[in-house]
């Protein structure tokens, strides 16, 4: 009883990747605890029983994997591929044989024998030069973890088996874990690692459960059955809140839900200010089936269809038909008036990518996005062919990421022209009206925006990379992340410059970075003259409401005021104060009060 009382309330800050507030019991999924005990066996019978125990664990592991595969079912976009490979490893006679031999010849327990087998493979894979193939040791290690778990008799470590209605806490979650969450009753989750663009974050948003990641040590601080509050909107986790705090959060949660409902009801209303200024609102989506949720959240179109998922988790490259299938689904979704498909942006901090790229010293500035496409032209052409063919079905744009100079976009245009020729020769139709745009996310592209504007039909500003490159801060380096300021005077000027260059050339300028979906910056971006904003579907209702409740002249006035500031924090504070006072319901509150209490 006393022990209950002295549980300390702890506030952890991370990155809110999927909005919503939930409080409940924690369930800590800790795979790192599965350690192999080492001991010797004596007697022939004991050794044979150990072999039996190992084989039983293999069977159970296989059943587990088959179970996951079945749950995923047919037609899933992600998942079953890596499971097949894992099952095959489980059945590999060399792998099983060497472990059984280890048990028998060394008279050691199954865990020890298995870890010896894994070490042997680790040594062998170490020698492989090809970075991708070298990385496949991960498949073996993952399989071994499953077997270790089954050897330890712990049946609670699969997502499928954990109790209902818990808040999942983990160091990290694998693709298999997150995919299964779709079918499970997990209220929310929090992890030590991860970023907004990580796999788990994307899935959390897709299935709409609150999530906070990047908490560094949440899996150590929280114990199973602790009460936790997850605020996936502002990225906090409160561990062992006192009753009053829980009450306050319950209140906040109710409030949040009521507001969410109202917002969603109003989501279909037009994005027009009181003085008649209109901004196109698009959704950023990752999977083709998110297009439906984009429409229900009030998007007019898809401003950014990230196509990386078509490649990710696939051991083999997607075919033209696979590409086509996804594009056609998005373009033909009811209520989608236009769809902008971004050609794939792999490399950098984007999950698997072509693992041959992963070894780069500075991947964000490395061989990625359009640079990779221009090197692997055959691969690029497959995607372009599919987009062109699908563009017959509706208003479509192709968006090229990471353009840094005119020569790149010209090269891309040549390739598109070639593909069009090929399609023409084959008698395959493609949309004549398809528009070509580029992402403005490299400082050089801003400087020559006037030249680039002559080459394309539209711009879309990618603020995440633009901020990172222009302020020279690595987004994933927490030692400098305090410098990551969307309202830095330099960033505001860069955006302004791009908008002006685009408008002078008569093309539209949109924004599809995280900044576009942050309610704090809605008026700032409107005042800077952007024609369109594209964001995660969940952010749309708020942004539209802010627009409907303000005027364009108010936003230009705000811009006049903040362009006079010299320091980033002055702008940030001014904008924050202005917006939280003007739209208290719609903009994030700060946590000062809470800090005092803890």
């Amino acid at each position: 009883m006393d022990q209950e009382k002295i549980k300390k309330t702890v506030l952890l800050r991370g990155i809110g990747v999927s909005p919503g507030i939930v409080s409940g019991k924690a369930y800590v999924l800790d795979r790192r605890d599965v350690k192999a005990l080492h001991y010797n066996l004596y007697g022939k019978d004991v050794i044979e029983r150990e072999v039996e125990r190992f084989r039983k664990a293999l069977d159970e592991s296989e059943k587990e994997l088959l179970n996951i595969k079945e749950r995923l079912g047919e037609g899933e976009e992600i998942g079953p591929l890596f499971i097949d490979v894992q099952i095959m490893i489980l059945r590999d006679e060399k792998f099983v044989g060497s472990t059984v031999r280890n048990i028998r010849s060394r008279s050691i327990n199954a865990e020890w024998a298995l870890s010896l087998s894994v070490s042997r493979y680790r040594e062998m894979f170490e020698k492989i030069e090809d970075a991708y193939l070298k990385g496949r040791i991960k498949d073996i290690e993952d399989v071994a973890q499953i077997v270790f778990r089954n050897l330890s008799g712990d049946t609670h470590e699969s997502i499928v088996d954990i109790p209902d209605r818990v808040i999942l806490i983990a160091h990290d979650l694998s693709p298999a874990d997150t995919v299964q969450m779709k079918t499970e009753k997990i209220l929310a989750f929090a992890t030590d690692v991860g970023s907004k663009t990580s796999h788990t974050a994307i899935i959390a948003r897709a299935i709409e459960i609150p999530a906070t990641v990047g908490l560094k040590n949440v899996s150590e601080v929280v114990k199973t059955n602790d009460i936790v509050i997850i605020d996936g909107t502002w990225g906090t986790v409160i561990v062992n809140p006192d009753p009053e705090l829980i009450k306050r959060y319950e209140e906040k949660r109710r409030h949040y839900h009521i507001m969410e409902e109202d917002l969603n009801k109003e989501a279909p209303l037009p994005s027009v200010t009181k003085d008649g200024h209109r901004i196109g609102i698009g959704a950023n989506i990752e999977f083709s089936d998110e297009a439906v949720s984009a429409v229900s959240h009030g998007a007019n179109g898809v401003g950014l269809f990230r196509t990386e998922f078509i490649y990710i988790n696939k051991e083999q490259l997607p075919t033209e038909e696979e590409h086509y299938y996804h594009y056609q689904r998005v373009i033909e979704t009811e209520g989608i008036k236009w769809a902008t498909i971004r050609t794939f942006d792999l490399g950098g901090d984007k999950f698997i990518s072509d693992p041959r790229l992963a070894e780069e010293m500075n991947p964000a500035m490395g061989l990625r996005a359009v640079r990779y496409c221009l090197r692997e032209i055959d691969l690029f052409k497959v995607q372009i062919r599919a987009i062109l063919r699908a563009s017959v079905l509706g208003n479509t744009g192709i968006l090229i990421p990471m353009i840094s100079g005119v020569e790149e976009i010209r090269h891309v245009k040549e390739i598109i022209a070639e593909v069009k020729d090929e399609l023409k020769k084959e008698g395959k139709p493609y949309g004549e009206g398809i528009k070509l745009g580029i992402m403005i996310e490299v400082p050089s592209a801003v400087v020559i925006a006037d030249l680039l504007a002559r080459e394309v039909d539209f711009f879309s500003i990618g603020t995440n990379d633009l901020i990172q490159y222009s302020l020279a801060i690595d987004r994933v380096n927490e030692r400098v992340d305090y410098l990551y300021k969307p309202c830095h005077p330099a960033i505001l000027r860069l955006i302004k410059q791009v908008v002006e260059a685009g408008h002078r050339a008569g093309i539209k300028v949109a924004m599809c970075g995280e900044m576009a979906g942050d309610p704090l910056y809605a008026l700032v971006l409107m005042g800077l003259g952007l024609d369109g904003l594209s964001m995660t579907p969940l952010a749309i209702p708020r942004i539209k409401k802010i627009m409907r409740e303000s005027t364009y002249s108010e936003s230009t006035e705000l811009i006049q005021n903040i362009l006079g500031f010299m320091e980033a924090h002055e702008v940030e504070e001014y904008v924050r104060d202005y917006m939280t006072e003007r739209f208290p319901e719609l903009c994030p509150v700060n946590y000062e009060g809470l800090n005092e209490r803890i």
Partner: protein
Amino acid sequence: MRKEENFTLKNELGLHARVAAMLVNVSSKYDARISFEKDGIEVDGTSILDILTLACPKGSNITIRAEGTDADRAMKEFARLIENKFGED
């Protein structure tokens, strides 16, 4: 019957896990004993891990051996798979 043929891998990622899994499936389907060889190292055609540790990126030259009554049919299936780049492009 004993068959032996040389191939050059043309698919983008070489003998990665998924492709290795396909090869294992073919090897296990036939009665013939199948092995793969690269740079003098020969491995069992039914072991996915053996095949992965051969480390064959795009452009690797490999030798496939098949010994048994249906060696000919097995070899033809391998040839087709490799020729079609494992259905990847």
